[in-house]
């Protein structure tokens, strides 16, 4: 099956039905391996055992920004090609991205309290991630407010493209401003600055979380296609009755 064939909703549903169980199983295996590796990883020489929070915080941050990246590409699909599956992707990705951004904020706070002495500071990195979370909530609210899916999709696509400005701000905030948050230590030019004994479990956990994201996104897209099918049938029923 060519990738272009998946643009057909019925073919996409068949693909999703076949793929979701395998992806789900792979996610469970990756999490089991990743959590095991995270638990046996050594403590950090400065941060002690709290470094184990990093195995959740970094994937949360990665998926929060990845979710908006997926929505940005989908927004282009909505506005340029007006493809309904792009609308479906954007709508399905929003709550998942929001949840992972929230996980990033919560685990960051729980890591910050013992290390920085505070749950929260209004520095550029933390604030820009909070703005991303609020943008997610705005997009979700927009989808729920506008009843017609195609109109909601266009409005949400415009907000998504505007909000994409926040992604480079999040990435480079630690370089552009003086922040309490540390500079990039994994996703940076040059080699990561983390010891392999901690970097490898972090990589495995990031893969596990990314697989979870992909599984959840496929499942949410399948649900959205079915929801639109229900809506279409109800409109047909009402139209036939009138």
């Amino acid at each position, binding site marked *: 099956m060519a990738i272009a064939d998946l643009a057909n909703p019925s073919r996409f549903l068949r693909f999703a039905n076949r793929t979701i169980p395998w992806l789900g199983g792979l996610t469970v295996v990756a999490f089991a391996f990743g959590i095991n590796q995270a638990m046996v990883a050594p403590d950090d020489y400065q941060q002690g055992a709290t470094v184990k929070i990093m195995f959740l915080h970094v994937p949360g941050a990665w998926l929060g920004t990845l979710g908006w990246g997926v929505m940005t590409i989908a927004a282009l699909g909505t506005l340029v090609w007006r493809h309904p599956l792009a609308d479906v992707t954007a709508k399905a990705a929003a*709550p998942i991205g929001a*949840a992972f951004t929230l996980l990033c904020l919560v685990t960051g706070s729980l890591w910050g309290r013992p290390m920085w002495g505070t749950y929260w500071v209004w520095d550029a990195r933390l604030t820009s991630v909070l703005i991303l979370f609020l943008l997610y909530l705005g997009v979700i609210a927009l989808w729920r407010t506008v009843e017609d899916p195609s109109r909601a999709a266009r409005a949400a696509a415009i907000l998504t493209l505007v909000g994409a400005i926040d992604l480079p701000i999040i990435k480079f905030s630690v370089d552009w401003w003086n922040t309490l948050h540390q500079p990039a230590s994994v996703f940076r030019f040059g080699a990561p600055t983390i010891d392999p004994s901690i970097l490898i479990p972090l990589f495995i956990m990031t893969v596990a979380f990314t697989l*979870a994201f992909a599984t*959840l996104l496929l499942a949410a897209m399948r*649900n959205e296609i079915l929801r639109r099918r229900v809506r279409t049938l109800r409109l*047909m029923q009402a139209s036939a009755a009138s």
Partner: protein
Amino acid sequence: MEATNHIAFIVAAYAAAIAVVGGLTAWVMLDYRAQRRKLADLEMRGVTRRSAPMRRPEPTMEKEEA
């Protein structure tokens, strides 16, 4: 730096992760069941895409499946 001093923060972080991933999983599974139930209910009442009336209410992705 003793791990025991910060164990509550670590446990709370992992509990938050379980809540997020578990909550999302439960949400997509329950939503799937709900949509399947609604579709089955419509089909039981004879409303299917095959029984579509002449006048379609709006252009949707369904047209690509013809």
